[in-house]
């Protein structure tokens, strides 16, 4: 299982904050995981297609080619705006 987490505008647009998913065979990196989630519907396709999307695995920012595996916490969020 992978723990998905969505924040801020992503959470609101997708209508989900936390979600656990079973990684399908062949989904081994972030880019593939995002592509798989985008197949859900038009909202997911558009929202996760934003080039400014940030990804963190286990609370550390990573690139789209970063491997993802069972037990990971994968967070997707828009550019940060604190401070």
């Amino acid at each position, binding site marked *: 299982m992978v723990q998905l987490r969505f924040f*801020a505008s992503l959470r609101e647009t997708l209508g989900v904050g936390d979600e656990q998913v079973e990684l399908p065979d062949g989904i081994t990196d972030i880019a593939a995981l995002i592509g798989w989630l985008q197949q859900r519907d038009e909202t997911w396709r558009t929202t996760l297609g934003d080039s400014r999307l940030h990804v*963190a695995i286990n609370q550390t920012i990573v690139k789209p080619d970063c491997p993802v595996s069972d037990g990971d916490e994968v967070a997707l969020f828009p550019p*940060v705006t*604190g401070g």
Partner: protein
Amino acid sequence: MIRVQQDDFDPGVELEQVRSKNAGTAGAVVSFIGMVRDLNDSNTIRKMTLEHYPGMTEKALAAIETTTRERWDLTDVIIIHRIGTLAPGDRIVFVAAASAHREQAFRACEYMIDTLKTDAPFWKKEVTDNGDHWVSTAPGTG
């Protein structure tokens, strides 16, 4: 020292602690306070909500503190960031660096707030007269 909290903080109390802890060794303390502005993109701001990513936030701020202490010769470092609902004029963030020399303290303080604004998982949602919206680029503070 890093802190993430809903409650307000008192810059005077933090600065006095830095002073007394480093009395004699620190010749300079540079601090930054970020506050909620009442105008952004010509929208009047009524309130603001700060969301964050619990767990990752603390890791991100701790990483900023570590890098800052490695890069400059400091006697003390503070990062405090608020979350939750705030109003114009409210304090959002406090960053301070103490050093024997002021150049070090200025560079460290500016680095910390610059890096926080790109690396720490906080998101601002503004409540304006034209509706609510997530801040996308220039945030509501300086």
